[in-house]
């Protein structure tokens, strides 16, 4: 029986359950120094100087560094979405000349004990002449640095005759929408532990995640190290969500400190630092308009938006704006389209990606617009969606632009089919009737829906090596990374399925640059698609080698043999002679190995729908999400339990993003959300059971398993669905124009209601 499609329990859980996990902070080596970063207390200012004499005089001070000490290290470059000319917007390793956000590193302190390092950091006094900060992305651009505008670049994607579409429109629907600044905020803060290896001269960086291979190359180049003198190692990782594992100044500083101080160096971020210095995301303002015919068919869509990039461009470059432009059309045909995104620098924490970058934003904007079109024309919003869907028969469907360097071609999909099945599954008519009855009885309650198209499985390649050892152990070495999503279990399932073995003897390696030369890591919902495909190919090769060797030993044609569990048997004589896998490996010279590379030019596009049922408490302005449904076509689920887990977790983050989570700044640019008591993440009290309906109706032809990614499906249209549900509860279509819908924003919406509804 195939292991693919089965909800097997995770292989990685035992150490995590028993407290024997190895997270970054758990790594300690003898003779270690601790680094503490001194951060800017002001949002924007001229850094006139830093008084460090007192800090250096502290008996525990090993070193205190400022920008001068790291002047030879260049800023961190761009990993994604290469747009020429953006280099001047990169963040220096330590602030030099100006500080541009509260939390920007200005000095690094090293001591033998973390408490002492903090004591010494308190003695470093930055001398800053404050300047007026820029805080609003849609304000007119100004000077960022001499000759540089705060508008770093403008991303645009377009096709079709937009002017004609608007000139001939039956109606034009216009919205202005705002998405708050929020982020992944994993429970484990960042950490970096750099260790010099005396014998080999190799520098090993622990605490890596997401993209260790890329970061290894980037660090080697920045620090002038030969590539073979640095390796990155991923241990247990306490959540990723896009933000963890990108290369940050603190990672570079720990490595540089090892090279100069000759001792291991550990840096563990505290939560305050995380909330001011790790990547944030999302914040943007959209002005969008749609030209429609009298049936609600969208004939033209025109969006202009301003993305709040924060103080610098980091590793992601302009990927969020790029994906927002690319994914806005979503599941709809839209014959004429234009999206223009202004990437604007502000004096806030720099931005990168957060789970479903560009899709959370785009789905909110697009689905708000579709609801507004329905309202304007007096149509059922579901009918408007059906009229605009790309037909199943139009697949594969090509958009006339690219994203992440790949052309956008929707591979497979039956959007109308999924919506129909989903509405049946959730009992749509019953839900509507219940809500109508409760509303009649005086409750403020509503239903809202958002449809989305996701992207997953970004290439261009993944390598895998599978080795069967003479002890019977099977090692699957991947260039993938694991941020807690169950990579080891899923890869082991795919490997076991390909070989014919069980899961027991399979060990999956990820995130170790000394075990495999290349690796793309874990982002963009790519691992099950890309690494999984490479495992499929490698397992098939290894199986062929295994059977050939067994055939030689058993004097039997390999096509009469099969692997069952840990033995090779003769198919038509199961009680006859058989061979132990370990023995076969030993006879083949000690071990059997197969390598495989999977390449993909195009991403694969899963899709789905979110449906929220919310209740408003008029007096307290509280919004309760009573029910939350997700329908999703994942192509093929390797482990449905883990897919549902991914979706449930994403949906919880989506509910947080829609109602609670926001990085707020005061007029001077001081961040106000600097503890977990200010930055509100949902607890179990705010999250209902996430009701997931998984479908496998549209497997992709782009990989051997037919799988599509699942990591970002839970969050993609959560904002859209909750906004629509709140509108419905208010009885005012189009009321919600800003996320998150905090109590004070809801209070303003309630105050706008006509008197009889109060």
């Amino acid at each position, binding site marked *: 029986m195939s292991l693919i499609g089965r909800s097997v329990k995770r292989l990685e859980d035992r150490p995590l359950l028993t*407290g024997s996990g190895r997270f970054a902070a758990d790594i*300690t080596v003898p003779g270690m120094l601790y680094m503490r970063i001194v951060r*800017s207390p002001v949002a924007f200012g001229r850094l006139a100087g830093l008084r460090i004499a007192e800090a250096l005089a502290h008996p525990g001070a090993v070193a205190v560094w400022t920008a001068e000490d790291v002047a030879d290290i260049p800023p961190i470059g761009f990993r994604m979405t290469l747009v020429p000319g953006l280099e001047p917007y990169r963040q220096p390793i330590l602030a030099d000349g100006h500080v541009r956000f509260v939390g920007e590193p200005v000095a690094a302190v090293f001591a033998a004990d973390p408490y002492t390092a903090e004591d010494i950091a*308190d003695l470093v006094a930055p001398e800053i002449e404050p300047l007026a900060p820029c805080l609003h992305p849609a304000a007119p651009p100004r000077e960022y640095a001499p000759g540089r505008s705060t508008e770093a670049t403008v991303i645009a994607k377009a096709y079709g005759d937009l002017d004609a579409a608007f000139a001939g429109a039956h109606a034009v629907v216009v919205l202005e929408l705002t998405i708050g600044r929020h982020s992944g905020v994993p429970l484990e803060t960042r950490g970096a532990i750099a260790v010099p290896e005396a014998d080999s001269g190799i520098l090993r960086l622990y605490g890596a995640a997401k993209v260790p291979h890329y970061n290894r190359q980037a660090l080697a180049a920045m620090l002038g190290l030969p590539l073979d003198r640095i390796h990155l190692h991923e241990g247990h990782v*306490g959540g990723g969500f896009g933000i963890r594992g990108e290369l940050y100044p603190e990672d570079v500083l720990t490595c540089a400190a090892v090279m100069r101080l000759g001792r291991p160096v550990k840096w563990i971020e505290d*939560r305050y630092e995380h909330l001011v210095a790790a990547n944030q995301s999302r914040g943007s303002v959209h002005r969008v308009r749609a030209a429609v015919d009298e049936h609600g068919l969208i004939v033209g869509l025109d969006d202009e938006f301003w993305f709040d990039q924060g103080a610098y461009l980091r590793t992601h470059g302009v990927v969020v704006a790029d994906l927002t432009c690319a994914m806005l059309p979503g599941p709809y045909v839209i014959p004429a389209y234009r999206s223009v995104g202004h990437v604007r620098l502000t004096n806030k924490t720099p931005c990168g990606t957060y789970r479903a970058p560009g899709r959370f934003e785009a789905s909110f904007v697009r689905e708000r617009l579709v609801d507004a079109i329905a309202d304007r024309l007096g149509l059922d919003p579901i009918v408007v969606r059906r009229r605009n869907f790309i037909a199943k028969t139009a697949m594969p469907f090509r958009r006339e632009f690219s994203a992440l360097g790949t052309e956008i071609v929707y591979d497979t999909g039956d959007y109308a089919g999924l919506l129909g099945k989903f509405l049946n599954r959730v009992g749509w008519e019953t839900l509507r009737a219940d809500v109508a009855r409760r509303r009649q009885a005086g409750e403020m309650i509503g239903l809202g829906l958002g449809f989305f198209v996701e992207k997953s499985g970004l290439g261009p390649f993944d390598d895998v090596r599978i080795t069967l050892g003479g002890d019977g152990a099977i090692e699957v070495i991947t260039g993938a990374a694991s941020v807690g999503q169950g990579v080891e279990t899923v890869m082991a399932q795919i490997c076991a399925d390909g070989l014919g073995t069980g899961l027991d003897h399979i060990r999956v390696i990820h995130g170790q640059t000394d075990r495999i030369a290349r690796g793309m890591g874990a982002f963009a919902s790519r691992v099950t698609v890309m690494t999984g495909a490479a495992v499929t190919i490698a397992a098939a090769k290894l199986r062929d080698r295994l059977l050939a060797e067994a055939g030689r030993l058993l004097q039997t044609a390999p096509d009469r043999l099969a692997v069952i569990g840990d033995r090779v048997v003769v198919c038509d004589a199961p009680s006859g002679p058989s061979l132990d896998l370990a023995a076969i490996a030993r006879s083949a010279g000690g071990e059997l190995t197969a390598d495989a590379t999977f390449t993909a030019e195009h991403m694969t596009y899963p899709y789905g729908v979110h449906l929220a049922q919310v209740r408003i408490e008029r007096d307290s302005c509280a919004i309760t999400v009573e029910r939350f449904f997700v329908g999703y076509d994942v192509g093929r689920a390797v482990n449905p339990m883990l897919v549902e887990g991914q979706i*449930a977790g994403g949906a919880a983050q989506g509910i947080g993003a829609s109602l609670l989570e926001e990085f707020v700044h005061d007029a001077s640019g001081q961040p106000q959300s600097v503890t977990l008591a200010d930055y509100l993440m949902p607890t*179990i009290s705010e999250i209902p059971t996430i009701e997931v309906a998984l479908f496998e109706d549209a497997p992709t032809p782009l990989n051997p398993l037919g799988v599509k990614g699942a990591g970002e499906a839970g969050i993609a249209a959560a904002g859209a669905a909750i906004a629509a549900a709140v509108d419905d509860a208010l009885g005012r279509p189009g009321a919600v124009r800003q996320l998150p819908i905090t109590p004070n924003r809801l209070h303003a919406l309630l105050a706008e209601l006509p008197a009889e509804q109060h």
Partner: protein
Amino acid sequence: MRSKPFTLSCARATFYDRDMSDKYDITFTVNGDKRTIRVEPRRSLADALREDCGLTGTHLGCEHGVCGACTVLIDDQPVRSCLMFAVQAEGTRVRTVEGLAIGDKLHPLQQAFWDHHGLQCGFCTPGFLMLAVGILERRPDIAEPELREALSSNLCRCTGYQNILKSVLAAAAEMRK
């Protein structure tokens, strides 16, 4: 270890209390073993458990008492070990996640979290396990709404909580047997 928020003036209080680095012996019981460690008075219990006792299963997610990842049991009460000084644990009985399993046999809560996919990254898991042990030992028959309320003490960023709830309910049933 979180520092105070920065002030705009950048002025520094040069306050540095010499006594802060004097060390004190404290004796307490950790997972049944009596231990004596020597710590600065300002050392948090979480740091003492992790660094001085080598029990890194207790995790620090915020160090200001909100996330609950550092929850341990002190005299059977769930406590945020980041909000307590080690010296305050003098004479107490501390239980951490490392003390739950007996040999290879997992505690019913650990087993239930495994069976019901109650963890993803696993960082919040020790805190949730210790919180749930504390709840179920006192209230083996706790009803679901109250259990939800109690579990809202801690944060998880991966699971969306439903499998945590499912796991604790399953363990409660198992522990009542």
